């Protein structure tokens, strides 16, 4: 791996964990000049390697009414367009959070956010299932998020280490 790529990887790994990190501080951590880090970040934004800066939120703690569902979707791929066209029809709905093409027992995995179970069910029965190429759907509601985006949602326990050891 060349030096530029290595630096980029290190920047990305740090940003992925903390998108709010100060670029000057990141430069110190990586042992390079701040301008170099800033340039790479700008370039990677332009190249759409960095697609956005999101925030991990534990909505459960806000008291907001929200349910998340994982929906397995089996579809018939369309001539010349494979799965892309049908995926597009699904991902354009704003309440759809993610759409993945999946290997195995079904084709698309859709994650969806809604206020209530009913709202999600209605979306599935009124929007998703009626799409011509959709053969079947199976909806799973998320009951509890233990870990998301590499972050364990439970509060971290205190350390058992002694304060001073040789």
């Amino acid at each position, binding site marked *: 791996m060349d030096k530029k790529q290595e630096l980029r990887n*290190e920047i990305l790994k740090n940003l992925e964990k903390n998108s709010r990190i100060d670029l000057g*501080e990141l430069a*110190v*951590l*990586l*042992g390079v000049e701040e301008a170099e880090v800033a340039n790479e970040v700008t370039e990677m934004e332009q190249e759409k390697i960095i697609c956005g800066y999101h925030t991990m939120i534990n909505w459960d703690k806000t008291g907001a009414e929200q349910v998340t569902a994982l929906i397995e979707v089996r579809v018939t791929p369309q001539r010349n367009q494979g799965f892309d066209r049908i995926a597009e029809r699904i991902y354009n709905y704003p309440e759809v959070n993610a759409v993945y093409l999946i290997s195995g027992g079904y084709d698309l995995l859709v994650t969806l956010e809604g206020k209530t179970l009913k709202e999600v069910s209605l979306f599935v029965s009124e929007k998703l299932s009626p799409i011509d190429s959709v053969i079947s759907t199976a909806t799973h509601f998320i009951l509890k998020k233990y870990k998301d985006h590499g972050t364990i949602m439970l509060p971290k326990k205190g*350390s058992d*280490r*002694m*304060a*001073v*050891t*040789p």
Partner: protein
Amino acid sequence: MRNPLSKKIVQVEPSGIRRFFDVANEMEDVISLGVGEPDFDTPWRIREEGIFSLERGRTFYTSNAGLMELRKEICKYLERKIHVSYNPKTETLITVGGSEAIDLALRCMLDAGDEVLIPQPSYVSYLPCTVMADGVPVIVELKHENEFKLTVEDLEPLVSEKTKVLVMPFPNNPTGSIMTQEDLEPIAEFVKAHDLYVLSDEIYSELSYKGKHVSIASLQGMRDRTIVINGFSKGFAMTGWRLGYCCGPHLILEQMIKLHQFAIMCAPTNSQYAAVEGLRHCEDEVEEMRKAYNQRRRFLLHEFARMGLECFEPFGAFYVFPSIQEFGMTSEEFATRLLYEEKVAVVPGTAFGDCGEGFLRISYAYSLEDLKEALGRLGRFIQKLRNEK
């Protein structure tokens, strides 16, 4: 009643700063930079393997020298890392931490009156272990101007007919200093010229930030003069599992295994099974930890520079060793005041030998958030001291 105690044991001095340690460990709300162990949990796959070994009922002794499976993995690992080959059957011993291996090695090599060259500042156990093995410790003071590396000039005036063993504590606790191939070569020549043996404590070998760690055992003619001591505590974040190992020539290892058999039987069985998993599958996790330490190391040095706190750049372990000589107080005074006035615990350099006077050991086995908070307090404290002057 007769005195139940051995004179030899009573004469071994307890660590002079134990009092400081006790105070720091009992104080509440202390932000500590004083710990000599990783802040990372042991990688999960290692822990899971430890749990699985218990579920499988692997609760019996292993052979005295340790699980053959683990010894083989260790030999492969050393071949890969330091390019030295050992026979897992006759030249490898699994111990209860690296510290057991230090004790065994010295006891197996020393007769009464044999001298041991011990570079300081260094880990606290070489000296008492030498004394308990009836050896005579000869302290080699490492110098700040050499960035606490060992040089032949340091050794030359101290070697005698009686010198038998040289301790090589690199990467070094507490200074973070490392020895490169170029630094080691003259030392190896010195060792051969004086027909010495080397106890090379490489427990921090995974934590080298400037090129790969080089073992003195890999230098020409040194393999059969060196006992390499290493373990899982630092690189694999496994301090509490108590698992170390040593490799060296059969002649010495045979005696060490014998002693270990009588004193210990064998290292903890489930720790051994867990460690096999670590050596086979955790290279990436170890690398990630190394990178995290390196980032913190750079951060600390950058902050010291901003505060105007003098510190050479160390490239190993997870310690920095800044000088506090400008403040005109002892390391222990400084550390004690810092503890009481700002509730930050650091270790006075003198915990690791008299020549650590004027320095502090600051550990970066802490999250960046903790380091930032602690350095904020340290900066404030230093400012206060400068204003007092």
